[in-house]
Structures are given as C-alpha cells and as structure tokens.
C-alpha cells in the first residue's frame, strides 16, 4: 500500500472536510427548497471513503454504491460543481439533471452509480467485475452498500456467484447502525454482518470505519486479494450523524448516542494526528478550512447559475436508438 504520510493526512483532512461541508451545504439548500427529492447525507462516514480511495488503484479500479452517493464520485475525481448541479436538476449536472441525488454517475471516473433500490447495485458490482475478468483486466470493483441492503436476497445470490466465478470484487457493507429507522439488531439474529460472507467461504472481516488508516489497511488487503484471488467482504463499522434522509426525525436513537460517536469523529481523528505530529500550523489549517469553504461556495454558485436542461433532453437518452418512436402523452 502507498505509505501513509504527512501529505496523506493533509489530503484526508482537506477531502473529508470538503465532503462534510459539501453535504452540509446540500442540507442548507434543501431547506431552501433549491434541492428537492430525497437527500441522504454521508456525514460521519467519511473515513470509509478516504481509506478506500487510498487503497484503490484510481487508474483502473471501479466503484458502485447505493443512494448515499454524493461524495464518492468527487473522491474519484468528478468535479464537485457538477455533482452539486445534478442535485439542482441543472443541465451541467453529472446526468444533466436526469439522475438527481440518488443517481450520480461518472463513466470517465469509473463511478458506476448512484443506485436508488436497496441492494439492487450489489449484483451490478459483481457484473462490472465479471466484465473486467472477462476482458483480462486486473481492475477491482468496490461494491458498497448499507447494512439494510445486507438483508436483501440480491446479496446472497451475488456472493454465491462471485465466489463461484472468483470475480475481482470487494464487497463493502458500510454498517452505520441503521437501515432508515431500523437498527441492525432489529433486522437479524446476530449483528456481525461480515459473518454472512463465511457461508460462501469468502474472506470476510470487520473494520473500524471511523479511522481512515484502519480502513485503508483493510481495503488494501481486500483489494489486492480480489485482484488475484476473487471476492472479499468487509464490514466497515461506521456511523451517520444525520438522519436517513432529510425527513427523518430520528426517534430511533438518542442524542447521547450521536454525541458518543462524535467523540471519535473521523475528521477530528485525522486533525488530531496532524496537530500532534506538527504536520501543519494553525494558520495552515485555517487556510485549508477557508479553501474548503470557498470551494463549496463555488459549487453552490455554479449550480445556482447553471441553466435547466432543455425539455427535449427527456427523449434524447432513454434509448441508444436515435429516432425511437415514443408514444405521445398529451395533445
């Protein structure tokens, strides 16, 4: 694995803070009704992405995830302005305003979505890996999903075939404790989701998902295993600070529980190391904070000022066929 250096910590701090502030901005503009639909935010889970990106080979490895998906494509290289614009429903968005919050995609940066049906992306992730193996590429696909999706049949069918065919895929369950309002405890007879892999003889283990170093080390082992020998399953134990979506009153948990997790906040953990190791002065940290804020403001401005898509676009990308004869729906 690439060494974890001063630069890594500074990059992690800047990236994770940016993801956090980007999501906070979305929450703010959502309340202003500039962003609509459902909005699922990543706050608290940033170490999972930071660690994964450190371990991936970003020249070829791929990622697919569920609907909590705004910051992963940014991490993989997508311009955050285009992600913000997508949430505004604008022409400059990653899908020109046709995907929305739950459906961010970037073929260029090998981010395969952005999927709104719980667990529906699990077989897709294995399929992406299937195609890489078929082509003789040694790329690995990170297939991410939540603890709720771990209860879908799609997981079990996919685990079975992925092992049968030794596909180069790492399955990552980001266990943030709750499937919407239902705790992991209330969805199964045991709470160790990683053990689900053992029934398929898949190397499987739990990871501390609040610490990017621990995530990176586990991810690297999993990814390199997948590259040569097939599937690996990681249960990354993490936590989301915000509700499932914006309409969530969070009656299923206590404020004390959230406060406990904030004590081991991934960004704070990274900042503590930076301070302890003197990787940056207070002024340098302030400069990063300002840079992050400015970048988020820039995204908002870009999204605000971008035009809405032309109505004809509705008919332009449903089919590859250019002259598909849609039925008319009004006079």
């Amino acid at each position, binding site marked *: 694995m690439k060494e974890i250096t001063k630069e890594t910590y500074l990059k992690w701090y800047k990236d994770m803070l940016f993801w956090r502030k980007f999501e906070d901005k979305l929450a703010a503009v959502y309340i202003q009704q500039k962003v609509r639909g459902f909005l699922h935010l990543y706050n608290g889970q940033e170490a999972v992405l930071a660690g994964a990106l450190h371990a991936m080979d970003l020249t070829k490895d791929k990622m697919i995830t569920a609907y909590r998906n705004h910051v992963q494509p940014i991490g993989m290289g997508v311009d955050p302005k285009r992600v913000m614009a997508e949430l505004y429903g604008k022409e400059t968005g990653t899908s020109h305003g046709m995907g929305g919050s739950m459906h961010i995609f*970037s073929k260029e940066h090998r981010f395969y979505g952005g999927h709104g049906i719980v667990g529906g992306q699990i077989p897709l992730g294995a399929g992406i890996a299937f195609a890489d193996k078929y082509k003789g590429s040694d790329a690995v696909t990170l297939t991410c999903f939540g603890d709720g999706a771990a209860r879908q049949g799609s997981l079990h069918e996919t685990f079975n075939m992925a092992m049968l065919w030794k596909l180069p895929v790492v399955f990552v369950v980001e266990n943030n404790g709750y499937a919407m309002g239902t705790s992991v405890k209330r969805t199964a007879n045991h709470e160790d989701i990683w053990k689900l892999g053992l029934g398929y003889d898949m190397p499987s283990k739990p990871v501390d998902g609040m610490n990017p170093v621990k995530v990176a080390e586990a991810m690297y082992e999993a990814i390199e295993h997948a590259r040569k020998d097939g599937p690996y399953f990681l249960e990354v134990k993490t936590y989301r600070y915000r509700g499932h979506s914006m309409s969530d009153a969070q009656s299923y948990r206590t404020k004390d529980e959230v406060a406990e997790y904030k004590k081991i906040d991934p960004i704070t953990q990274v900042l503590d190391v930076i301070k302890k190791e003197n990787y940056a002065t207070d002024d340098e940290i302030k400069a990063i904070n300002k840079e992050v804020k400015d970048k988020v403001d820039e995204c908002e401005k870009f999204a605000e000022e971008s035009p809405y898509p032309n109505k004809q676009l509705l008919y332009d990308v449903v089919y*590859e066929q250019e002259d598909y*004869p849609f039925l008319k729906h009004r006079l």
Partner: protein
Amino acid sequence: MRTIQFREAICEAMSEEMRRDESIFLMGEEVAEYNGAYKASKGMLDEFGPKRVIDTPIAELGFAGIAIGSAMNGNRPIVEYMTFNFSLVGIDQIINNAAKIRQMSGGQFNCPIVFRGPTASAGQLGATHSQAFENWYANTPGLKVIVPSTPYDAKGLLKAAIRDDDPVIFMESEQMYGDKGEVPEGEYVLPIGVAEIKREGTDVTIVSFGKIIKEAFKAAEILEKENISVEIVDLRTVRPMDHDTILKSVKKTNRLVILEEAWPFASVASEITYQVQEQAFDFLDAPIQRITTADTPAAYSPVLLEEWLPNANDVVKAVKSVMYVK
C-alpha cells in the same frame, strides 16, 4: 430453401453473433452442459467454451444483475430465462437497472443486453407457468420487446436484438421450439419495430403475435371457405410498435380483431385499440374486437385450460361479429 426448427434458428442467431463479436456471452440456467432446457443452445458450450456459455445457479435476480453490470462495462450479454415466468424473480434488475441506467446516467452508460426465453402457456402447466408478460415489459420505457412467430423471424430478429445497443426482451415459446420453417443459409438481420403482413386479405384485419397467431391462420382458412377474406398482421415487435402497418391494413379492411395470449386488462390489444380508435376512427365499420385469455389465472385441468386459452373458433366468432354475419 432449407427448413430448420425454431430452436435451431435461435441457436444459429446466437452462435453467428458470438463468432462475430467476442464481447457477447450466453448466461442462464442449464444453457451450457445441458445444452439448454429446450436445447436452444445445443452445441454452443462445445464451440465457445465455458467462458462464454455459462451455467448459472438458480438465481434469476442475481445473474440478471451480474449480466447488466457486465453490459455497463463492455460486454453484450444474452441472458436466457428458462421461462419468462421465472423472470419475475429478477424483474427488479430489468426494470430498475437495465431500462433506466442510460437515462439516469445522462447517457453515459448503456446496456446492450438481451433477455430471452419462452413466454405464455405451454400445455397443462398450471397458473405459475402459463403467463405472458409482454405488456408488462412493453410498458417500460428503455426496453424493446420482440415476440417472433416463425423460425425465420426468430433468427433475423434475435440477431438484430443482439446487435442492438438497448436492452431487448426476446420472447419465444416452449411450444414453438420444434416448429419448422424456411430459413435461408447465410446471414440476414431483420429490423426491430417492423410488423409483417403474413396473409393478405380484404375484409378483416387480425393483428396478433407470437405462438397464438397460429390460431388466426387456422381461422382464416375456415373463413376463406365462407368467402371472408382475412388479412393477418404479425406484430413481431411489441415495443416499439409498428402502428403504420396496422393502420394501413385497418384503413383497407375497416374491421379489426386483435388476438393475444395474455390477460385482457391493459393488454397489448388494449394499446392497439387505443391507437386505432385515435388514428383511424372514421375508417372503422365495427367496434374493434379483442380475443385474449380468460381474465383468470390459467388452470391445470384440460377442460379449464381450453376454456381459458384463445382458439381458432374464438377468432372465427370475432371476425364474424365485426362483419355482422352469423
């Protein structure tokens, strides 16, 4: 011209395309070592090997999703369902992923994939094995739906489906795999979305598709003896639908009967009826009649199945009703 079976036409179409394009593979239950549940992939494992002719466990949702994911990353999969009755286990992947990926990603990812297998009833198989979901799939933007009725059409249209860059549902019939028909040596591809007038006539138009169209041909023979001239339009593709061919025929005969092996509610027949009343209202000399299965699940008993399934007598009766003759 040489005569081959429907199953051989399917096998030839897949094999020819797989020889041409390395990115195509066939995946499904019993497609490889068993040579296909209905022998539609006979010999393909021997020719293409296990990398490209792939037996799956019984996991219709899982392998549909894996095939779709592979299509997003450069493959052109053919997925065989042993019957489309089993596709319901995997229909989430078809409707929510295959049909949507292109639009949701703003055109970045496409999904060139074919889901094929038998549809509709096939004898006394009971309720779960006797269903036709052509209208379910055809209701979904993003998909194309093809239902051939002859070996010639099956081969040319399956090749077109495999070459198409959009997801295609390709529906066959257990009761057609043994049907023989003329299929030329050498390559041909038929266009998707083009119906064919399979029998010319002047008095009544019958629109149908798939296996059940045979009942229309039987009825036409009976009616000819009574000097009623029937024109038969074989839709071949349900989505997109060739309205022009239907309308042209209806404007000629001024009478329309639609024969479909599916439940009546919101059927393909209903859609055709809407289109014709809107675009050819003044040409109709009688209300459009449709013949479908009974509005019930299929039943096992031969007597009940006969009551459920449309037949040539039903067609004769419907034609006579739109002709106002007894």
